[in-house]
């Protein structure tokens, strides 16, 4: 089986190639750093920003470097409710990455299955599935997500569901394209000749050869999911105001910009920018090194 997979799978040299770009190294380090921060948020953050009993309105709108009346430092200042911005951003990163990764993985799984089945079976199955995909892609993602959230209400699970719904079609479309090319290759004919089961051919032979493409699309889509979550939160949908994500923090700070309290909006905005840019740079570099034809 390994012989059949070697066809387009990453060779050992791919990683060396990947690290030849300094930008990719910086992006990987940045992104990994954010992942670590998200993973260990409760131990890193000075305050639990979601525990309202720890947040005091009397400490609201303090600039970076201030101290609370109990003497605790607010390194990056506080927001309009007296929430420590550093802690709020650390937890915000956690929500953003969680939403981006989980919705990306689920959408990838759904989209892959649909794409593989459509390509392998062909005929009316392919037609129906791809028309559904077309239908889905013809609506602006933000519009679909907005409508879904208005119907579903608030919560991390709901926002993940909405993101999966708007994203699976991208994966389905891409995977089908690659799988269509693969499914007419000799190794697939050979596998069919050996009378291997459909499932085994699909997931054991065709799928591994689609992986590089999927990896690249998944990275890009994750960045898109993170920014879409921030957009929805900015518009006030998705998460409750007492559990701010990065987008909601930016929205909250928006009202204070004209009075010179820049830190509430600008700092989470920079963090969001860094996450999305690093994810995109990673995706770009993977595309260059893995060289799938997108």
């Amino acid at each position, binding site marked *: 089986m390994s012989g059949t997979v070697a066809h387009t799978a990453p060779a050992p040299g791919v990683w060396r190639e990947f690290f030849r770009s300094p930008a990719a190294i910086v992006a990987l380090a940045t992104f990994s750093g954010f992942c670590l921060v998200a993973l260990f948020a409760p131990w890193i953050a000075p305050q639990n920003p979601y*525990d*309202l*009993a720890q*947040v*005091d*309105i*009397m400490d*609201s*709108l303090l600039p970076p470097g201030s101290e609370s009346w109990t003497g605790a430092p607010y390194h990056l200042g506080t927001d*309009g*409710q*007296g929430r420590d911005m550093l802690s709020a951003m650390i937890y915000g990163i956690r929500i953003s990455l969680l939403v981006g990764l989980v919705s990306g993985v689920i959408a990838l799984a759904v989209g892959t299955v649909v794409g593989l089945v459509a390509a392998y079976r062909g005929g009316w199955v392919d037609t129906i599935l791809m028309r559904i995909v077309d239908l889905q892609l013809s609506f602006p993602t933000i519009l679909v997500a907005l409508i879904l959230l208005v119907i579903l209400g*608030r919560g991390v699970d709901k926002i993940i569901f909405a993101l999966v719904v708007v994203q699976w079609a991208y994966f389905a479309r891409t995977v089908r394209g690659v799988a269509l090319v693969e499914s007419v290759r000799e190794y697939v004919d050979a596998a069919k000749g050996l009378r291997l089961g459909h499932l085994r051919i699909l997931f054991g032979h065709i799928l591994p050869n689609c992986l590089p493409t999927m990896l690249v699309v998944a990275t890009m889509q994750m960045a898109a999911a993170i920014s879409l979550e921030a957009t929805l939160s900015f518009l*006030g949908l998705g998460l*409750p*105001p*007492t559990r701010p994500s990065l987008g909601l923090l930016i929205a909250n700070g*928006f*009202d*204070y*910009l*004209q*009075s010179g*309290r820049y830190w509430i909006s600008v700092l989470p905005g920079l963090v969001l920018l860094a996450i999305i840019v690093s994810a995109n740079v990673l995706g770009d570099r993977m595309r260059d090194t893995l060289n799938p034809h997108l």
Partner: protein
Amino acid sequence: MNYRMSWLLAASIAIASPTFALAQDVLTIGVRSEAASMDPHWTQLSGDTQVQEHIFERLVGLSPTSQPIPGLAVSWAPIDETTWEFKLREGVKWHDGEDFTADDVIFTYDRLRAGVSGAPASPAFQLEKGGKQWTKVDDFTLRITTEGPYPTMAEDLAMLPIIAEHAASGVEPSVDFNTGQAAIGTGPYMFEEYSPGSQITVKKFADYWGGEPHWDQVVFRPVGQDSARLAALLNGDVDMIDYPPTIDIPQLLEDPNFVVSTIPADRLIYIIPGYKHIEPFITDAEGNPMVPNPLRDWRVRKALSLSINRDAIRDRIMGGASLPAKNIVPPGFFGYVEGLEADAYDPEQAQALLAQAGYGDGFNVTLHGPNDRYINDARILEAIAQMWSRVGVTTEVDAMPRNVFFSRLIRGDELSMPGFDVPEFSIALTGWGTVAGEATYTVSGTLETYNAVTGGGNGNFGRYSNTEVDARSVLAKRTIDNDTRRAILEEAITIGMEDYAYIPVHFQVNQWGMKASLTHEPRTNERTRAMDVRRVE
């Protein structure tokens, strides 16, 4: 390309030049809420009525402090126990030149009673209160009878804009008003343009009975986002804005190019506890529903009130512009009780009361509220959630847009049916404006037991019920003598508020920001009107 650009530039300079501007004295107002209709019987939202007030007038007007003053009626008096007689103003012209008579008033009230089809919140209920019946005596005299003695007749009629019989007969509600066809009033300004999302324009009515209006044209431009509205004022797009963001008030006050007008509003911001035996959004530490609902214990309600730091909300959220309250109407209004002082912040006593009531370990609540209706509403919700959480009542906040919030607040429960509204929320923050300047219907609306037939408790969304309050509220509605009625109202309010029927937070303080070349006489009822604005040179 360059040539065309310079031509455009020259044209824009010509438009902006002062000589051009002087030809027409235009006032442009940036408003937070856009008027949804030009039909004055469509809703009672202040965003709608403030624009309609330029075009349509009522029999009874309201002074800046919401006290009744002559409008289309010059005088009124009770002629017996159950009849009021109104003398109408003579020589009033409609915008199309026709004469105003009592027939128009009859037509208006008949239209309201018949029902304005499709209207989300018509003010018709004002006519049902007291079972009003109206008859024309002559062209300028009108009699209104009620089932019993009815003291607040003038206050009720101050809510009912008069429309023209000849212009509004048989028209389609709302639609034909928005085109201008039926938007014929007697007010100081005439309908000019209604473009939803962009602007509403009215122009001077030179034959206005109250003298020539000050502005040639008034433009209302909706800018919903607070900071964008402020920016529109700062960069000169508009001359005046309502609801300047509280956080930016100090900056406006320092700037010599702008001034701010301020007045305590008639709008009370308060928290309604739910009184059902079991409330869906109240759970114990394990997340199970609580029986009985702890909010039914007055000690719990008092504890929630004592744990709110109203001064902190005023200073840290409202930019100093709020009036902490325990009263239900603001100072100076009929029914204000001198002795009712806002609860001082006392978390220790709050915890002691909770322990005494048997809830020393606290419980969980979800506090609902709007996020685009009242000044800083979402921030107030979050601050109160902090304060309650600190005394052990773990509070989640669910803030939502006003159209969703109010329908769920009023009739959100699945048991709701027409004539029997069942509110959904277990505890919610909302507001009540005493638009009539008089506490009778604030007591009846918010403290009386809910009764869809009499209209009692039509704003009592927690379903508070106290016979001692009910008896006084019903009596007040039938007492014509002002001093007696005031005493009854003050008793009812004191009983209800000592029982923490609901938990007042503060009265809003309304502010407007404008160019220094303008003066504005603000109104307690929040309306933003060109009639109150003058240019000073």
